[in-house]
């Protein structure tokens, strides 16, 4: 029975979305609490998975290491299966998704326009995200990947800021362009890899794909497909130069949606690289590792540099995401156990830290109705509790020891230094830049003379604290003792590195 836990986690939100469409339109609290209840179920199940997860299992290309596996035929004519399961790569992501989705329901309490539609789409989005992380069949993965796209598009397009239409379409087309490239790749793999869409079986065909005699469009098969998949995932991360949709989407999206976008959706890009690109094309990964590391460093520096120039608080946080995802890329490309674990851990930690930052921006935006960094000043005096929580988030983002961001970044640097000394050195500059833009922002917003306009700004309320405090506790706890999450992923990341390096 218990293998159905992942299926439940994926489809309970969908059920919730269906239920919500039939609730009466004017019962706002009923709709909100229904959404919260349906989002709570996956969270509880995710905790249970986290508790019962067998840390000794390895996963990646070894089916025995996957847990809660369900494998049923879906479209036998094409060998497409309902094939799901979790391993060390996906389990932390599933936990993160469930946690952030649940908290974001509460962060969306202030939404007043078309409540039913909002929460129904939000829960549909959760189904898409969960499904993407647990899928082990390529077509199933693709379907969930696309299912996620539409609710996101509507959530930005209907509930977003003034330029929401532009931002929504830009987000949609960028991501779609990436994912259709993936579809061609999936088909090519299917016909070269013994007519299967099972990711595990495709990994077993890695040697066939790497055969240098195999070509597509006159070029090396594995390399072309690796690049096609890489672009598809890179758009989601987003890797420079595909990042331009991200600031627009973040600025226009409502707070909770920004949290999900930065906290979960960006991770899908790097998750896809780990789950799909690396084990299926280990040879090509070796060839392109340096290029990926370079792109990672560009992301780190360019993102931080752009963040420094931002006047809009939310844009600053958005660019800081670009920068922090660069660490994930760098750690991954190092192809060392520390680097890979650091990358996986950074995915989880950045998910929590950036979620806090977006929630914090949402708090002041709800009060001041603008996000201009220079428009505030001395908020520390009027909102001490808020400022305290904010400091925690920003310092964690800076990578202060004792908070969760630190461990992941150290691991990434340790891992990367073994492979690329100069690049690691360069990327360390990113830390200085990060500290620069964050401290400068803190000075302008929280310190200095009080802006008279905001002398009566109300303090952060209990509901807002409820969304922030659990994440804050996780950030502190994992900063001191990261093992509970690290031991989930350790086996898998090591296996992944061996898979690529021993190829």
């Amino acid at each position, binding site marked *: 029975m218990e293998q159905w836990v992942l299926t439940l986690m994926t489809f309970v939100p969908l059920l919730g979305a269906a239920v919500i469409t039939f609730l009466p339109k004017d019962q706002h609290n009923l709709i909100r609490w229904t959404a919260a209840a349906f989002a709570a179920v996956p969270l509880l199940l995710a905790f249970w998975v986290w508790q019962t997860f067998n840390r000794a299992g390895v996963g990646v290309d070894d089916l025995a290491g996957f847990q809660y596996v369900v494998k049923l035929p879906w*479209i*036998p*004519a*094409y060998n497409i299966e309902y094939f799901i399961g979790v391993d060390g790569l996906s389990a932390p992501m599933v936990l993160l998704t469930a946690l952030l989705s649940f908290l974001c329901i509460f962060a969306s309490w202030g939404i007043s326009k078309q409540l039913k*539609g909002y929460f129904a789409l939000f829960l549909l989005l959760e189904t898409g995200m969960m499904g993407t992380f647990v899928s082990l069949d390529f*077509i199933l993965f*693709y*379907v969930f990947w*696309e*299912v996620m*796209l*539409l609710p996101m598009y*509507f959530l930005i*397009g*209907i509930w977003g800021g003034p330029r*929401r*239409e532009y931002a*929504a*379409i830009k987000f*949609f*087309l960028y991501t*779609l*362009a990436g994912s*259709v*490239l993936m*579809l*061609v790749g999936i*088909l*090519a793999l*299917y*016909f070269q890899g013994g007519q299967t869409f099972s990711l595990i079986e495709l990994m077993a065909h890695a040697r066939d794909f790497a055969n240098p005699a195999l070509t*597509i*469009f006159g070029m090396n098969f594995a390399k072309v497909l690796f690049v096609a998949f890489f672009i598809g995932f890179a758009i989601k991360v987003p890797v420079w130069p595909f990042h331009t949709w991200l600031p627009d989407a973040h600025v226009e999206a409502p707070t909770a949606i920004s949290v999900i976008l930065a906290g979960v959706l960006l991770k899908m890009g790097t998750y896809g690289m780990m789950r799909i690109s690396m084990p299926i094309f280990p040879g090509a990964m070796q060839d392109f590792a340096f290029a990926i590391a370079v792109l990672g460093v560009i992301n780190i520096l360019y993102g931080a540099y752009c963040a420094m120039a931002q006047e809009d608080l939310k844009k600053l946080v958005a660019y800081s995401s670009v920068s922090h995802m660069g660490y994930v890329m760098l750690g991954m490309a190092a192809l060392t156990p520390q680097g890979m674990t650091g990358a996986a851990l950074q995915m989880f930690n950045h998910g929590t830290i950036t979620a806090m930052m977006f929630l914090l921006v949402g708090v002041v935006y709800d009060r001041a109705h603008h996000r201009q960094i220079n428009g505030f000043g001395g908020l520390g005096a009027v909102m001490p509790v808020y400022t305290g929580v904010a400091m925690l988030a920003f310092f964690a983002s800076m990578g202060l020891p004792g908070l969760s961001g630190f461990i992941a970044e150290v691991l990434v640097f340790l891992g990367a230094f073994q492979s690329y000394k100069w690049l690691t050195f360069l990327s360390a500059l990113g830390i200085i830049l990060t500290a620069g833009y964050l401290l400068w922002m803190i000075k302008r917003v929280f310190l200095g003379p009080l802006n008279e306009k905001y002398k009566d700004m109300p303090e952060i309320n209990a509901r807002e604290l409820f969304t922030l405090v659990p994440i804050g506790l996780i950030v502190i706890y994992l900063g001191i003792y990261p093992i509970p999450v690290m031991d989930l992923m350790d086996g898998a990341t090591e296996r992944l590195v061996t898979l690529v390096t021993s190829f």
Partner: protein
Amino acid sequence: MDFSGLNVAALLPELLVSGGGLLVMALHAAFRGRQDRQLVWVSLASVVAALAFCLNPLTVEPGYFGSALSDPMAFAGRITVLAALVLLLPGGVAYARSRNLPQAEYLSLSLFAATGMMALASAGDLIVLFLAVEVLSISLYCLAGLMGERESSRQAALTYFLAGSFASGFLLFGMALLSGSAGTLDIAALGTGLARVSGTGTQWVALGGVVLMIAGLLFKVGAVPFHSWVAEVYSGSPTVVTAFMSTAAKAAAFAGFGRVLLALGSVSEAWVPLVGICAGATMILGNFTALVQGNFKRMLAFSSVAHAGYLLLGLMAVGAAGESLEAVIFYLLPYVLANAALFLVAAKVSQAGSGNYKLDDYKGLARRNPWLAGLLALLLLGLAGMPPLAGFMGKFMVFSAAVRAGHTGLAVLGILTSVVAVFTYLRPVVYAWFHEPEESGALNLDGGLAFVVWVAGAGLLLLGLWPRLWLDLCAGIGV
């Protein structure tokens, strides 16, 4: 003479539907038009009976000495046509009534056209193929001119007639050359007949026939470079007729096209490049022209050209592997469901708005009728091929057939142009959901249209989540 090969039951669906058409005419005359409101039930009854037969066939033997086939392809093609009728007849009658069109003529001509379409899907020899094409074409010429009071409808009828009969000329001459040199009228035997004359001078006559036939069929399906009639005919014809042409007629034409190409697999090197070039050009031109339309009906018209491109891509793959035909036939049903419902929605929204199918009519539709706006989004995205809707499975199958046949480049082109298509289809969705309405007041659907929209939407979702429902019926096509 032995009559056991006659097997009339093989043609039962065609007989039921054409009988329904005749009955409608007779009842119309007998009651002097006073009971026309009830005729739609007679028509639907004959359609549903035929559909029931196709789902539970009494016979799987060919009829009329092999002229009318009862293979999976015949049943799948007929089901697609009948599904279109089930959706279009109720909506079409409401449309005809609201615009004072003759209902009895609309119904009987639709049923006669459908007879031709079904016969086309089950044609076993070239004579039946030609007769079927003509039965459907001639009925559609009349239907296009049904709104004879209007300049646009007359114009559409004339253009459609001239283009259609020109294409018939190509088709018939191609058939004459091909069947004459292959020495048989039996479609399935054309391949062996051609193999017999390969290397002789007759081979060139046969290949000329193949090219002419393909040209005629490309004309009928509205593919580039023979698409010039599409815009005028589709936008000028009464909308329910346009819906019929772009769904059932196109589906039947592709079924017939597929049968012919399947038989010509042995000379695939002669026609694969030809069909491939047309497929690529059709995908590009159809999608980009649809993108710039400010008129919903024209946008749907050009998007149906684009879909012809994807279907041709699937047909092209038939040259390498006959099973690819299954992908083409699978693709047709979701396409037919979505398109039929969208044309009817277009007629309704336009009538409540500007009256000339402006995209602006969709502004703020979500405020005026959220369910309709939601279903509009569902149908458009289904047409665009977004998972988990059935349109995705269709595209997936067609592209995978193309990749399997080695046409990866064209598959990439197809996938890239389908991104353009998504952008096209999103525009009405953006208008409906992200814009404020220009007119206030709810936009309510009548029962018939609501039925159509819900059935089509549910069908797209169901076939997307559980494609086996339709895939099992398509299994065995082309092998």
